[in-house]
C-alpha cells in the first residue's frame, strides 16, 4: 500500500454571484514512502489546490472537496478539524512558495520553529529551543543559536526558505509537500535549496510531493512526474522517460519552450500557444485542444481517458487522442 493514495480528487470553488469553477477535476496518484513525486503544470492548472486539499488547508467556505486522499490507510478528507490539526505538522509537513510572506514577521524564528515541536512532540520550551538550533544547523543555517532570536526580515531569502524547511521537517513527517519552494528565490539559491531538500528526504526517507512549473526542478529531483492541465493529470511517467520521450503534446510543448544553451544557433523556441486563461472544461473534448498543435477532430468530440501508453515501454499513462510520435533515435539522445 502506498503512503498516500489520492483517488479522483476534485475541488470546486464557489463564489457568491459567480459561476463555480472546477480547479481540480478527478486527480489520482500515489506516493510511496521515500518517493518523490512531481506535480507539474502552468500556474492555474490545479497543482497547488491539490496539495492544499490534501493538507486540509482550503477554506471551509467556498470550496467543495470530493474524492479520496488516504494517508497510511486513513482517509484525510473526512477527518475532523481537530484530527487534521493533530496530523498537520506531525505526519504531513508543507513548505510554501514565498518564504518571506510565509513566516510571521513579528515573532522570532526561534518561536516559529519551537511552537511546532511543543505542539506535536510535547517538548518544553527549553528542550524545543535546543532541538530547534539542531534543526537550523541541519538545514544549513550558520550560527543557529543567534538566528533563533532573529526575525524573518533579518534573514536572506535562501535562509528563510531553509528555516521554513526546518519547520516543516521539525517533527519528522512522513510526507512533505513542497509548493514551488524555489520560485521566489535567486537562481543560485534555488539549486542549493533543491539539493538540501533532496538530501533531507533521502536521509529521513520522507516522501515528497514536489509542486512546480519548472521542469528543471523535476529533472533534478523527482522519481515520478504527473503533468497537470486544467485540473487533470494528462501524462504520468518516470522522470527520465518523460524527458526522453514526451508523449502528450502539452508535455512536449513545455519541454520545447525551455531555452537551451546547446540548441543550434538560429533555432527558435517554440512556446505553447495561448495561456491557461483559455481553459475550457473537460467536457465534450480535450481541454488542451484549443492550444494543441496536434489536435484532430476527435479531440473536440470526445474527452480522452487516462490510458496506458502502447508506444513507450514502462508505466506511461496518457490522456490524449493523438500523442506526439517518439522522434528519431538521434534526437532522443540529444534531448536526454
Amino acid at each position, binding site marked *: 500500500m502506498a503512503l498516500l493514495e489520492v483517488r479522483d480528487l476534485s475541488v470546486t470553488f464557489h463564489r457568491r454571484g459567480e459561476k463555480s469553477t472546477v480547479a481540480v477535476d478527478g486527480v489520482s496518484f500515489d506516493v510511496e514512502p521515500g518517493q518523490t513525486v512531481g506535480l507539474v503544470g502552468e500556474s492555474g492548472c490545479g497543482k497547488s489546490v491539490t496539495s492544499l486539499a490534501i493538507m486540509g488547508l482550503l477554506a471551509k467556505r467556498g470550496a467543495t472537496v470530493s474524492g479520496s486522499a488516504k494517508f497510511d490507510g486513513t482517509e484525510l478528507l473526512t477527518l475532523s478539524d481537530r484530527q487534521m490539526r493533530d496530523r498537520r505538522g506531525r505526519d504531513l509537513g508543507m513548505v510554501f512558495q514565498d518564504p518571506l510572506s510565509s*513566516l510571521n514577521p513579528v515573532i522570532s524564528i526561534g518561536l516559529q520553529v519551537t511552537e*511546532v515541536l511543543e505542539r506535536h512532540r510535547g517538548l518544553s520550551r527549553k528542550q524545543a529551543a535546543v532541538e530547534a538550533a539542531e534543526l537550523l544547523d541541519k538545514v544549513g543555517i550558520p550560527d543557529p543559536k543567534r538566528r533563533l532570536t532573529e526575525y524573518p526580515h533579518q534573514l536572506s531569502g535562501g535562509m528563510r526558505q531553509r528555516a521554513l524547511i526546518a519547520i516543516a521537517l521539525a517533527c519528522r513527517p512522513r510526507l512533505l509537500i513542497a509548493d514551488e519552494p524555489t520560485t521566489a528565490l535567486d537562481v543560485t539559491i534555488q539549486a542549493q535549496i533543491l539539493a538540501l531538500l533532496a538530501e533531507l528526504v533521502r536521509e529521513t526517507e520522507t516522501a515528497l510531493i514536489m509542486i512546480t512549473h519548472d521542469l528543471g526542478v523535476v529533472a533534478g529531483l523527482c522519481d515520478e512526474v504527473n503533468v497537470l492541465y486544467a485540473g487533470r493529470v494528462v501524462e504520468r511517467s518516470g522522470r527520465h522517460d518523460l524527458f526522453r520521450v514526451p508523449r502528450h503534446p502539452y508535455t512536449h510543448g513545455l519541454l520545447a519552450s525551455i531555452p537551451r544553451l546547446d540548441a543550434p544557433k538560429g533555432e527558435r523556441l517554440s512556446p505553447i500557444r495561448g495561456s491557461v486563461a483559455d481553459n475550457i472544461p473537460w467536457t465534450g473534448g480535450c481541454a488542451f485542444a484549443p492550444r494543441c498543435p496536434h489536435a484532430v477532430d476527435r479531440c473536440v468530440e470526445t474527452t480522452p481517458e487516462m490510458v496506458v501508453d502502447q508506444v513507450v515501454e514502462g508505466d506511461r499513462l496518457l490522456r490524449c487522442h493523438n500523442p506526439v510520435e517518439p522522434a528519431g533515435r538521434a534526437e532522443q539522445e540529444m534531448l536526454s
Partner: protein
Amino acid sequence: MLRYTIRRLLQLLVVVLVLSLLLFAWLRSLPGGPVSALLGERATAETRERLTEELGLNEPIFVQYLKFVGRALTGDFGVSTGVQPGDSAAEIFVQRFPATLELSILAIVIALAVGIPLGYLAARRRGGILDNLSVVSSLIGVAVPVFFLAFLLKQVFAVDLGWFPTAGRQAGGIDATRVTGFFVLDGLLTQEWDAAWDALRHLILPAIALASIPFSVVFRITRASVLDVVDEDYVRTAESKGLTSPVIRRRHVMRNAMLPVVTTIGLQTGALLAGAVLTEKVFAFPGIGQALALGFERRDYPVLLLLILCAAGVFVLINLLVDLSYAVIDPRIRTRGVR
C-alpha cells in the same frame, strides 16, 4: 532609535513653539482683546488705557510675544478671568488634568475592551448577523453627536434610573484624602474603598459617552485588519503546522492585526480631548474639557491659551509615544538596520 526619538522630540518642540505663536496671535485678534476680557465691556476709557499699559499691550507685538514666552517659561501663563477667576491658568491645568486623564484612560480601555474582541468576531464571521449588526452600530456611533449621547446616558441611567450620579467627580458627602489627583487611584492607595467606588461611578457614564468615538474606529480597524491578516501566507503556514486555534489566533493573527490598532490609539487621543470638552460639559465633570467649554463661554483667554497649547502638546506627545511603542511591537522597525 535614540536619534529618531530626539528628532521627534525636537519636532514636538517646534510644533509647540509655532503653536504658541499662533495662539498668541489668535489671542490678540479675539474680539475685544484681553482688556475687554478682563474689564468687561463697560469699563471707562481711562481704566482701559491704564490696563493696556500695565499689561504691556502698547508695545510692539513681537516684544509682547517674547515677554509672554519669558513668563511662560517660568510657568506663568496669566490669571483666569472666567473659569475660576483669580486662580492662575497653570494652577487650573494642574488641578484639572488628572480628572481628564482618568476619564480618557477609562474611555480608551472601554473602547479597546469592547472594540477589539468584537472586531475579531465580526471578521471571523464575516457577513453574519453579528458582523452586520456591529458594523451598522459602529457607523451609527460615528453619526451620533457625542454630547447628545452623553445627554441620553445621563437622562436614562442617572436621572431616570438613578444608577449613576448625574454630575461631578465625587459625591459631596465623601471626604477623601487626595494623593495623586486621580480620585479612583487615590481611593485605592488610601484604602478608602467607598471613595474609590464613588469616583468610579462618577466616571462610568462620561467614559462610555467618550468611548463611543474611539470604539467605532477601533472596532472597524480591528475587523479590517483581521480580515487582511487571516489571508496572509504566514497564517496558512501556522495552520500547516497543526497549531491549535487559540495559538494561531493569539500568536499569528492578533499579534499582527493589532499593529494598525496601536496607531489608531494615538490618533484617537485627539478626538478624545475634543470629545472631553463636550462630555465633561454635559456631566459637569471638572476636567480640562469643562474648563475649555467654560473658557469659551466666558472668554477666559489665558486659560484657553494654556489649555489648547497643552491639549496639542499632549496629543503630539502621545503620538510620539505610540510611534515608539510601535517599535517594541513590530520587530521590523525595532531592528531596522541591525541586520
